[in-house]
């Protein structure tokens, strides 16, 4: 860990962001969180998340001071309970009402209602992403100043629904457009102090990698057909070859997908500006691959317990590859006036999703 840190400092001595955390410091937090989460049947997970973020934010330096996380477990818990109270009727319908309607022969109306519910849930996922980002910014302080965002997010929820559906049209060709335009739409409603974020990501340079993602299964299919047509007669060899081929196809597809995602993350964060600051993200596909292989390695080597370090590694990875250039004028960086939402990230917890 220390060598890595030194290497980072030497490589990018003047990056505005620095992560100074240490896994030995984080381990007692993560392990006691795990213990308390187990004995409370999961209810402690909100407080666990708050503790974890307090640590990670406090070890993240921007220019001359650290970030500070001020969100609490209690507010995340309450936000989640409120969301569940609203969503539970729909969940109960899915569990019982649908079955009752089918048993009565109301097949078409049941499926129609189910479809409507699923579309509604899908839009709510968009809303959850919006609100989770706004919540996190509003609880993040630097120099005593916090971020925030416009309240609501229903417009974004609707965009999320239709842009994702349109993105999937024409064999998924419009997915990069959907992703970047949703990224812009979301970040353009966020702010830090008095300064709005401005995001202007486009699909330039992303389409090539995305075409590769789409083409891989087709190319793989051709390879399989070609090898199968001249395959040997021994059924065991054929089965083994088949397994190896399937494994290879998944591995290649995952790497190609990672390549697209790496380019998308660089593009999206690189398009972000705020109050005279220009952000950049430097992680290449290879860095992402190392991150994921590291996750797998740690989880396997610790027989699973290592999963508590995944959030730590993700955050460290994010901050170590995040850069900002430009100037911060402290006089004009005044307190945010955006309202502090009370829903915390309840909706995101309900759907078990992240913000970024």
């Amino acid at each position: 860990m220390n060598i890595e840190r030194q290497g980072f400092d030497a490589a990018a001595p003047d990056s505005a962001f620095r992560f100074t955390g240490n896994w030995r410091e984080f381990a007692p937090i993560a392990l006691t969180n795990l213990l308390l989460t187990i004995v409370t049947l999961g209810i402690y997970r909100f407080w666990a998340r708050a503790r974890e973020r307090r640590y990670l934010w406090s070890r993240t330096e921007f220019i001359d001071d650290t970030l500070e996380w001020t969100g609490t477990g209690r507010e995340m818990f309450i936000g989640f309970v409120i969301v569940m109270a609203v969503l539970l009727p729909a969940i109960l319908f899915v569990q019982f009402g649908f079955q009752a309607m089918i048993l009565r022969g109301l097949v078409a109306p049941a499926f129609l209602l189910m479809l409507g519910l699923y579309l509604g849930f899908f839009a709510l996922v968009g809303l959850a992403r919006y609100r989770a980002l706004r919540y996190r910014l509003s609880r993040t302080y630097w120099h005593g100043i916090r971020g925030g965002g416009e309240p609501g997010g229903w417009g974004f929820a609707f965009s999320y629904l239709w842009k994702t559906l349109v993105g999937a049209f024409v064999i998924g060709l419009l997915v990069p457009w959907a992703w970047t335009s949703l990224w812009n739409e979301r970040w353009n409603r966020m702010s830090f102090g008095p300064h709005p974020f401005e995001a202007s990501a486009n699909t330039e340079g992303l389409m090539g990698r995305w075409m590769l993602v789409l083409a891989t299964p087709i190319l793989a299919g051709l390879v399989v057909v070609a090898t199968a047509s001249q395959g040997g007669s021994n059924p065991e060899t054929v089965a083994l070859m088949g397994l190896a081929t399937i494994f290879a196809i998944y591995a290649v597809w995952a790497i190609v997908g990672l390549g697209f995602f790496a380019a998308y993350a660089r593009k999206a964060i690189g398009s972000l500006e705020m109050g005279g600051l220009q952000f950049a993200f430097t992680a290449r596909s290879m860095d992402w691959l190392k991150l994921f292989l590291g996750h797998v390695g740690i989880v396997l080597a610790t027989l699973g317990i290592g999963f508590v370090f995944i959030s730590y590694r993700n955050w460290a990875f994010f901050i170590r590859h995040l850069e900002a250039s430009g100037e911060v004028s402290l006089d004009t960086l005044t307190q945010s006036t955006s309202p502090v939402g009370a829903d915390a990230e309840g909706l995101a917890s309900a759907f078990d999703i992240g913000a970024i």
Partner: protein
Amino acid sequence: MTPAHLYDGASAVRHEVAVAADGAGLRLSIPGEWEEQVPLAELALAERSRAGLTLVRPAVQGWRLRLAAPVPPEIDRLFPRRHGYGGWIDRIGLWWAVAACGAISAGVLAFGYFAPTLLAPLVPPSVERAYGAVLVGNFGGKYCSSPAGDAALRKLTAELDPHPEDLNVRVVDVPVVNAAALPAGNIMIFDKLFETVQGPDELAGILAHEIAHVRHRHITAALLREFGVGVFTTALGGTTAGRVDGFVSLSFTRRAEADADQGAIAMLKRADISPAPTAAFFRRLGGLEGKAGRFEPALAYLSSHPLSSAREKKFEGAAIKGASYRPALTPREWADLRAICSSRPRSGD
């Protein structure tokens, strides 16, 4: 006087101030320019680390006072140490909290396991009937009926249960090999089951199993579980609790299935019908499952029903050698029952 950074929450400008502790709180000052007395009651500890101390003033958004390490002891001791686990856990200590939460959680799980069985008999039949009517309705008009078939089914039910009037046993035209007990004494035999079942005695064993579910109020107990503990734990507890609850729920169903088999054997014995054909049915079912091969015992823990081979042995063992059992139905009645759906116009499935 200790040097510190002060952010006032209004702008990001950092003020270099001097801090001194006095009886009532902290005195902050920029020598010759500005001075403020902050009462201790208005201050709270945000973080204590090796880097120093961060204090906040909850009434002023963004107000931060940062003292670099080493913090003078007269200031440091004003802000008691805490571990930051949250609220009362800090007060009683981690290990006491773990023990207390563990005990409560064990209690909740035990309640979830035993309460439905204990509470089910207390649910009035009218409530169960109303719920059954909502859930089942008229089964989409898929009931099969013929005078001779209905008579055979009534006879079979009456042989197994002394109070057939509380039961509504129906054959439905749904293409699944199964039978099911639903709320309010509704028992559905799916028409396709007749293709697998080879005689009236086998059907008697299956029907007896479903009647036992009704008589032991397993359906009501399962609904109580789903509505009460199931919804509560999966909604509030998230994935951890969901998984634990999944196992509890599974063992709950498995226990109910084993109970129903026991009840079915007792019913067959009272009706003087041989349990051996039911064993044969499970043997055939086991043949279909046999594909799972040697993984069977491992899978048994994850399956809601006991393994067919175990059930086969149970029914086989209940058959008394040399006893003169009587057939559950006459060949004529059996033929009528099997044909009960043939008079029904085929629905478009």
